[in-house]
């Protein structure tokens, strides 16, 4: 298994074996991610962090990951401060940035942007989200969280809740869960259900899938509740958004009737969909999940830069 120099554009670029390898390396990174141990594994390496769209967790955890491993970070968090404002193409921006660094992490509002960047760059491209497309490192940290908290990935029934149509994280996650043969239930109002293309693809991989509109029913036998935000920015029509926002709310009352040991995950940011009263319960796994972004991204950086095989 050789990761050195590889692009990570989509979770589909990785095999099950490769994913498990990344998760194993990530497990070993946890003490360094917490600051309990020091590392100079990536000393002398520079990561360019090119964020053409807002981000809190992805950008900060990537930058923390690189710095925890002794590497350096350059980049921008807003395209306003770059030559893109002067009309420069993304391809030229990428070709320029790659001459200053050893790896590029990018988020861009257009689908396929990371795939295109990978064609132009000779340094590895790590996709931190391309519009409504892929977000593979989110998917890997979700899998890491499920494995760490439930001991296994495939033996769980995972309920994916909320915006399954526009939410990029759930498409990649559904695909990855299908790869691990986990059972899935898609909980969404009809207009926000999982696109048929994703459902077909998961079924073709042998996944057991069911559909539900009632969240109370779904929690009765789910091991993992993966909640997503209804993303206002992805709705072409504000009327459609108003109809569905706030339709599912996870609170203590709902979770009292849930299967014992259920964990609640969320890629964050959350708005209305998880009540703050859940934060301090044994169910809440979303802040640990956000932390897991650091060791998982450390593992990815170390692997593609050849610091670890």
């Amino acid at each position, binding site marked *: 298994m050789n990761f050195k120099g590889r692009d990570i554009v*989509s979770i589909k670029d990785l095999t099950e074996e490769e994913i498990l390898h990344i998760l194993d390396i990530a497990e070993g990174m946890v003490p360094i991610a917490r600051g309990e141990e020091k590392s100079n594994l990536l000393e002398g390496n520079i990561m360019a962090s090119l964020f053409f769209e807002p981000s809190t967790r992805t950008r900060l955890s990537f930058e923390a990951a690189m710095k925890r491993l002794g590497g350096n970070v350059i980049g921008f968090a807003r395209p306003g401060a770059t030559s893109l404002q002067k009309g420069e*193409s*993304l*391809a030229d921006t990428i070709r320029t940035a790659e001459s200053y660094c050893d790896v590029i992490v990018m988020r*861009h*509002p*257009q*689908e*396929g*942007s990371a*795939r*295109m960047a990978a*064609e132009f760059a000779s340094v590895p491209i790590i996709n931190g989200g*391309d*519009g*409504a*497309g892929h977000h593979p490192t989110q998917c890997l940290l979700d899998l890491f969280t499920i494995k760490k908290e439930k001991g296994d990935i495939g033996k769980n029934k995972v309920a994916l809740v909320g915006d399954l149509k526009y939410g990029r994280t759930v498409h990649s996650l559904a695909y990855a869960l299908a790869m691990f043969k986990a059972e899935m239930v898609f909980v969404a109002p009809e207009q926000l259900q999982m696109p048929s*293309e994703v459902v077909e693809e998961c079924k073709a991989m042998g996944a057991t899938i069911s559909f539900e509109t009632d969240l109370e029913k779904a929690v009765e036998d789910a091991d993992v509740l993966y909640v997503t935000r209804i993303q206002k920015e992805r709705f072409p029509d504000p009327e459609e958004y108003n109809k569905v926002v706030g339709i599912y709310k996870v609170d203590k009352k709902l979770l009292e009737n849930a299967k014992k040991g259920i964990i609640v995950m969320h890629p964050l940011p959350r708005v209305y969909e998880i009540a703050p009263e859940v934060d301090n319960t044994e169910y809440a796994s979303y802040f640990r999940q956000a932390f897991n972004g650091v060791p998982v991204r450390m593992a990815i950086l170390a692997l593609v830069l050849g610091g670890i095989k």
Partner: protein
Amino acid sequence: MKELKIQPIKNGTVIDHITPGNALKVLKILKIPENVSDSIVSAVMNVESKRGRKDIVKIENRELKASEVDKIALIAPNATINIIRNYEVTEKHHVVVPDEIVGIVKCANPNCISNSKEPIQPRFIVKSREPLRIKCFYCERELEDISSGLM
């Protein structure tokens, strides 16, 4: 005697069994007449045949390579390419859908990077040939109405 709508050609290429109505799109994909500026080109549409209606394109004095013509398989999957020498069909091929389609159709997703001002050509991967299904190499969306995506 049956009247022929188009006279047989002495030498050149006949693209037969084109999906009815698509002859002009075929010419557009093959960049005809620009690519064959010395040739006489004729096209007939909605001709009756044993297998139903079809379009036909004839290009005189120019033998098109099968690989050149395969591009039309997107909109005319049943087409055949006949090479004519001295009024005889000397070679006959069925079009084959290539594995990748570059620069012929554009992605229907307005937010796909291939629809912005980047120095790239639209590129599609063939997911299945029967029925024909193609997906964008960049954004991975399937192109549902292939002929409306023609550039």
